[in-house]
């Protein structure tokens, strides 16, 4: 049998596409790489390299403003993530187990609502809403910001949890019920442990999204509720200080770790 000169593997390849891909990858990472690199630069003039130093990390750690912002950021992210993950897990259980029912697609659409509206619209609308609620209730404090974060974290936490549930056959739960597990025992000993990678992935996603939010926080945060991104934005507007590079690098590191962990968790199939 005569072989054709072009093998299937080679047929797939589009040399131009390969070239574009590597360039795109380079362009995606180059700015971040430059940022990280210069966070270790001893020089105050950001763009000329003198020598390696951890000086700006030290300065950032000693900076009161940055420390406060970090505390606010993590407090908001931790509470919003916990709340959003619990709510999203419950919603995912209700929307992906058992036969379909009227109202399910409407419920799913509502849960995904925060993803479908431009962030700036959500931000100003929430500002308007909260300004009324703040007036009516007289309450101030971090609670409002946490609440706003919880709302947009829910759909992000929901996605991986629902995906995991969809991949999980319900025979495990049926088998547990067959083996004398009450519905609660079944959830506690079978559903939840099997769902855990999805729940963790959802929590990490929510945490990252909360930690990185700028626009909604910018609109809603009251005085003294500056988060890290808001602090960074202020610094950038005022003119760059090298501490920002250091803080940004730390934030990038946290995100990368979380997302890498999430990817690994999601690859484990039930």
């Amino acid at each position, binding site marked *: 049998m005569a072989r054709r000169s072009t093998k299937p593997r080679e047929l797939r390849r589009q040399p131009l596409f390969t070239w574009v891909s590597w360039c795109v990858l380079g362009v995606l990472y180059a700015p971040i790489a430059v940022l990280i690199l210069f966070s270790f630069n001893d020089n105050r003039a950001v763009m000329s390299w003198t020598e390696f130093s951890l000086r700006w990390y030290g300065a950032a750690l000693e900076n009161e403003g940055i420390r406060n912002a970090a505390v606010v950021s993590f407090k908001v992210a931790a509470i919003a993530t916990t709340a959003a993950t619990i709510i999203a897990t419950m919603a995912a259980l209700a929307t992906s187990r058992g036969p379909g029912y009227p109202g399910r697609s409407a419920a799913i659409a509502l849960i995904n609502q925060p993803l479908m509206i431009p962030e700036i619209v959500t931000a100003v609308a929430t500002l308007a809403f909260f300004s009324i609620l703040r007036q009516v209730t007289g309450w101030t404090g971090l609670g409002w910001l946490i609440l706003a974060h919880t709302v947009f974290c829910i759909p992000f936490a929901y996605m991986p949890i629902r995906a995991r549930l969809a991949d999980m056959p319900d*025979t495990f739960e049926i088998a547990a*019920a*067959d*083996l*004398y*597990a*009450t519905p609660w025992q079944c959830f506690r*000993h079978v559903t939840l442990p*099997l769902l855990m990678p999805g729940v963790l992935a959802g929590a990490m996603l929510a945490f990252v999204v909360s930690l990185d939010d700028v626009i909604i926080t910018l609109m809603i945060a009251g005085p003294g509720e500056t988060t890290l991104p808001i602090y960074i934005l202020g610094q950038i507007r005022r003119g760059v200080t090298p501490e920002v590079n250091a803080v940004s690098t730390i934030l990038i590191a946290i995100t990368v770790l979380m997302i890498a962990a999430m990817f690994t968790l999601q690859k484990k199939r*039930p």
Partner: protein
Amino acid sequence: MIDIDNVTKQFGEGAAAVQALRRVSLTIPEASFFTLLGPSGCGKTTLLRLIAGFELPTGGDIRLDGQSIGHLPPHHRPVNTVFQSYALFPHMTVARNIGFGLEMQGRKPSDVAATVNKMLTLVRMEEYAARRVDQLSGGQQQRVALARALAPHPKVLLLDEPLSALDLKLRKQMQGELKRLQAETGITFVFVTHDQGEALAMSDQIAVMSAGEVQQVGSPEAIYTRPRSAFVADFIGDTNIVPATLLRYEGGRAVIRFAQGPELCANAASDALAAGPVQVALRPETITLTDAADPAALMCGTVAESTYQGAATQLTVRLETGPEIRVEVTDPPSPGARVGIACDAAMLQVLAD
């Protein structure tokens, strides 16, 4: 003893309603190996799920030792299941899987451990206790699934096509294993399968199901040699269904006549058939070939096709009356030969429908 009393299961409502089971009534004797046999979609798995409690019947009742259980949730029924996919919990070890039911029943940890060990021995998996289930082969998973379902010592063990995922050799081996476990534990096994060979080999009793109804219940031998209907005769093994004429009943047996030959006293699935044309089941291996002119020949025809099958040769004989029948013989005549068909009358079964 399980009493299935007029059990009906309907899925959906109104025009979209599908009746998966229609007034099924069965009695499954204590400590027996009972098989629900039928093609896919016949309702056998639905019946199993109703006994287990995964679904509730639409009407009718299920009783276990005289007590109604049809309304109970699965975790309140002394019934355990071996699933087709095994459904072993992937996040637990073999031992925890086996002990799960006992743990849920709130048994003492020492009791659980002792029973788990006993079960591991029973299914010959002692050295695998600490393994994760995804490190096991299909056959080993099967054994763990069995042990897990047997550990709480249920009154009834339900098996949903548990052997279908195994290769042929392993399947044969597990058939024997299942028989042994049933005998050793004395638990009632209700086994669901679409494989008639498996059903014949393992069961004390078989219920043949089709289209949501039970067609026939009986011992493997009774089902095989005395099928009630054309469906059962056809589903269980290879059968020829040949038209004949019913003349009369005589001492509980039917007197029939084929296209030619003498009057015969055949078994009858029903004693209330009207005289006239009937269907008769005739197993290929019970037929003997004779000379076409032999007065004992019930019908005659010509050999149309011959297929060598090792131990025997399968012939297709075109009858002079039109239809073709299959015959299994050891020394086949050559194709084109004219032959007579003879058969022991005791092997003939007049079908009811």
